[in-house]
């Protein structure tokens, strides 16, 4: 999923410098969209058919594909009962299909971007940070064995010869997180055996797997305070050489962890006219890790029940949803734990901790937590 983050990364490269006249930034943004909707998939590997995943190798980088990410989100609670949501993402982006050549260790075609956000639900504060580095000279990179993905001192890495548990660390200023993530449920392959189609053309697809329920424990630091925390995390891994198809403007993505042991992952690819693209997708994962695919518009339905307006420029995001899977009795109400969880980074989007309540499998009463990502609202005129 999250194919459009390719834009995020590339855009970030040309405009990460700070204040620039709005018109110029807008121009840069649009021209980049044009560039990327073109044919510069030439020379990159593409996701054309399901592949045989192998681990731990596939936890590591796939530099022949244009984009890739290690995406960890989760909800945490301190011993004293203070709630936090966190997002830790490292994006890899190939700027060209091949290395530029030359003897320098700095020569690379790989660029890395990191986003780190902490929702301090207890006090209603949201912190978000962004970083860039080239995938060279030790500044940023990804290695499979042992697993290590890093952008400067933001790291996701194995703590032993085994891949799990993973250690996650990120900090900026006086906000920091350090977690240990257990494997939890086994890998879930999204789409068709891990091949997730994003557009009608062959190859406009990604390889996509997830760990949907990873027990997490560690420490969160906010200012002078520090908290021992526990909770659940979700790891999304995806790599592709794809882009949004024509007519797609963004997506609404949900990763929900319910306290009866089930998870739900759904995403709606939004079209220019506001409708859902037929390639929108969803899946339920049962307590044993088995997946139950959902057909968008047939099995699963989603409606926004509220909205949140960005103080930055008045962008209106949906905020609060009703999600139903009528055949299985699911009827969930999803509410942001904070309204203001918009990441004001190079490419603005809303990604935040949510709480879930309602009816789950078989219509039984259920509660839960999760993460929602909303893109394509800010900056893009529909």
């Amino acid at each position, binding site marked *: 999923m999250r194919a459009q983050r390719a834009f995020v990364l590339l855009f970030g490269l040309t405009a*990460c410098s700070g204040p620039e006249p709005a018109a110029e930034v807008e121009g840069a943004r649009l021209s980049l969209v044009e560039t990327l909707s073109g044919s510069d998939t030439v020379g990159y590997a593409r996701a054309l058919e399901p592949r045989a995943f192998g681990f731990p190798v596939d936890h590591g980088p796939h530099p022949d594909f244009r984009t890739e990410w290690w995406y960890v989100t989760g909800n945490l609670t301190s011993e004293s009962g203070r709630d936090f949501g966190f997002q830790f993402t490292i994006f890899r982006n190939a700027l060209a299909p091949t290395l530029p050549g030359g003897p320098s260790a700095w020569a690379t075609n790989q660029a890395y971007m990191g986003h780190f956000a902490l929702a301090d639900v207890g006090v209603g504060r949201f912190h978000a940070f962004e970083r860039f580095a080239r995938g060279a000279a030790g500044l940023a990179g990804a290695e499979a064995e042992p697993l290590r993905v890093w952008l400067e001192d933001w790291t996701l890495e194995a703590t032993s010869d085994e891949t799990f548990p993973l250690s996650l660390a990120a900090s900026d200023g006086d906000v920091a997180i350090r977690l240990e993530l257990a494997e939890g449920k086994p890998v879930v392959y999204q789409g068709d055996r891990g091949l997730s189609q994003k557009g009608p053309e062959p190859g406009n697809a990604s390889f996509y797997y997830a760990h949907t329920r990873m027990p997490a424990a560690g420490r969160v630091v906010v200012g002078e305070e520090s908290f021992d925390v526990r909770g659940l995390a979700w790891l999304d891994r995806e790599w592709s050489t794809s882009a949004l198809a024509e007519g797609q403007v963004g997506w609404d993505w949900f990763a929900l962890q319910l306290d009866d042991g089930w998870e739900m992952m759904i995403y709606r690819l939004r079209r220019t006219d506001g409708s859902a693209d037929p390639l929108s997708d969803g899946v339920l994962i049962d307590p044993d890790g088995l997946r139950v695919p959902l057909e968008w518009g047939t099995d699963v339905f989603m409606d926004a029940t509220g909205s949140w307006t960005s103080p930055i420029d008045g962008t209106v995001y949906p905020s609060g949803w009703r999600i139903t899977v009528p055949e299985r009795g699911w009827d969930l109400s999803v509410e942001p734990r904070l309204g203001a969880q918009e990441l004001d980074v190079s490419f603005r989007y809303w990604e935040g901790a949510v709480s879930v309540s309602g009816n789950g499998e078989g219509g039984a009463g259920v509660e839960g937590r999760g993460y929602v990502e909303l893109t394509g609202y800010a900056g893009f005129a529909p």
Partner: protein
Amino acid sequence: MKLLSQASARYLLQHRVQLFLSVLGVSLGVAVVLSIDVATESSREAFRISAETVSGRATHQIVSDVAPLDEGLLSRLRIELGLRESAPVVEGYASSAALPGQALRVLGVDPFSEGPFRPFVVGGGLGVDVADFLTTQRAVVMSRALAERAGLTVGDSLPVQVSGDSWSLQLVGTVDPTDELARAGLADVLLMDIAGAQEVLGLVGGLTRIDLRLPGGPEGEALAGGVRTVLAPGESLVTAGTRADAMSGMIDAFDVNLTALSLLALVFGMFLIYNAATFSVVQRRALIGRLRAIGVTRGEVLRLILAEAAWIGVAGSAVGIALGLVLARGLVRLVTRTINDLYFSVSVESVPVEPALLMKAAALGLGATVLAALPPALEAAGVRPRVAGLRSVAESRMRYLVPRAAVVGLVAALLGGAVLALPTVGLTVSFVGLFFVVAGLALTTPAGTLVLVRVLRPLLHGVGGTLGLLASRGVAGALSRTAPAIAALVVAVSVTVGLGVMIQSFRGTLERWLDGTLRADIYVSLPGVTASRATGTLWPDLIDDFVSHPDVVGHSTYRGVDLLEGGGGYRLVALDLDPRGQEAFDFIDADEAEVMRAFTADQGVIVSEPFAFRRGVQRGDAIEIPTPDGPQNLEVLGVFYDYGSDQGAVMMSRGLYDRFFDDPGVTSLALFVGPGVDSEQVVRELVAGVAPDRTVVARTNDTLRSASLDVFDRTFQVTAVLRLLAFIVAFVGVLSALMAIELERSREFGVMRAWGLTPAQLWKLVVTQTGLMGLVSGVLAVPMGIALSVVMIFVINKRAFGWTLDMQLGPAVLAQAIGLALLGALVAGIYPAWRMARTRPAVALRGE
């Protein structure tokens, strides 16, 4: 008062030539001062802007004295210390056939790190695709103006040379900063990705520096402390600008010298004003007397004369500023070429004129004029009405003053000499001392004139008869008029002589030094940015090829590394000397063979004279040299004469160098050929064997020697220009003074004509008289010029640059002095003589 102004205006208008010369004198003085100011200021400013542009908004920098920084340091800073605002920089120089004559600054950066530092590198709307920048091998971005000058558009390739290697850079974008400062700063910058810059500059694995932004206060202190813990020996954390300041400090002495010379021109301009004002007073004594008699007060007279001077000052300053700005454009080229030859690369794109400089020039022009007019104005105001008309009053007053002035002058000169003799004073104070010497000696010239004229009188009588006698009496008897003119001429000629002797001595010393130092037959180095200093690293295989040429019988290698510190820098040199090259050094107070034995036995270092001078180091002292293993204390085995650089050099044997530095490179190579072998032929053969993508400079002993002297001559072109300008100002002064003298005596000449003096005899009289003044000035200028050259050679040069020069006094320079003075005075006498000879006695006698 209106009446007074009218009288004043009429007087000035009636003496148009004199008025014109006065304004011209002030103009030239102001123009010279302003143009030097603008030229030095422009080159400094260009350097500062370019340094600031490339260091961006950094607050600190990590630099290394001894070697490139290890590139791994950046990730340690980011990961171990979490120091986010840090940017790696690789920097160096290149040249391009597409941009002839321009040193190009290669700035290698990591665009991801640039956000906080150099906003021109990243930022939307600049038309540069960062992906192209990163992933095109040897991609380059430059300012649109530079691209246009090179005739390039995006997609073209730019051929460049760096230390002899040829590269082709791909132009992937241009930037066109709207900000004037960034535009100026980018004027000579080739912006590259760090990977490409490392490759092209031969710095793979290393960084030139790391720029940092540290917060202020205790937090910043703590971070700085953290940074220091991860630095290797030789690496240091300095505040941004420290290095630029140190580099800029290299040219301080050079600037002071130029400024002093330019002020000299203004002082001559002041002489001129003094003359003009004195004459205007002297000529109007009768008028002033009458004015006083009818009730005009002293204050009014004083104001009148000063107002006249002020008007001349205003007009002269205005013309001078215009003239100075024109002159500055020419001088900027000379000044920056010298800086490029000797110190560092700077390219001046524009000659911005600071309003402050204009104000300074105008204030100097006006102030100097009024100041120079003050003594005659006071004299005029002090005149008693009854005796005002009598010139004899002025003359007897002059006779009273002459011996006293001589005493005061001698005291002043001695005082100046005493200041100069103090070993501790700085350069500026030395110039003040020099000024006292000059001014003091100038005050003794009237006395000197009287003595000389008396000595010459029998001779004149013998040769010229009565006319000769008349001429000599004219000079001595009209001392109140002739003395200032003679003094001005003496000063001008003596300064010319002094500078001439200094330059001649310097060049002679340099030549002798070159003869002694250039022992090898062929010198090989890389084409570099700075003419006087070899840089870069010769290819090892090329060295092998050259050394194994059948006619080459021996070789020495030289490794030069420039170290910056405090207010300047020095060059650390590693020498591997062929036995034939060991006599190249001439040591101060030490036995050559003994020092060289210790040197080749790795027992210590030898330092150049400027180095020893700047740091107060003597033979036997220990000096601290930064090395990758930390600072090393090494003994100074000897101090050698070196005129190659005023920044100083420390030399050690290659063995000692290799013990401390992991740097096998060789900067230049000296080859010895067998007896009877034609070096030129060997050079041709060596160069023919060099691979086509490489460029080396191989020169014979003779070629290098003359190239070095060329640099010297270029360096002193500025001095020569200033010397000429100063002389022109003084000459104009003398011209106007002599004209005034002769014109004032028109009545006297009229009487002589009436008595039967023929026009030809009058010509002879006037020319003899001015010639006598020229001769007297020339004779007086010789000792004064020698005194000045002694000061310049042994005090000023030593304090500015640390060089000991051998004074070389040729008869030519002295003959030139007398010739100049004579010629100047004779030329100045032509117009009055011509005019007098043409005037009918009756008209001349009609008088006022």
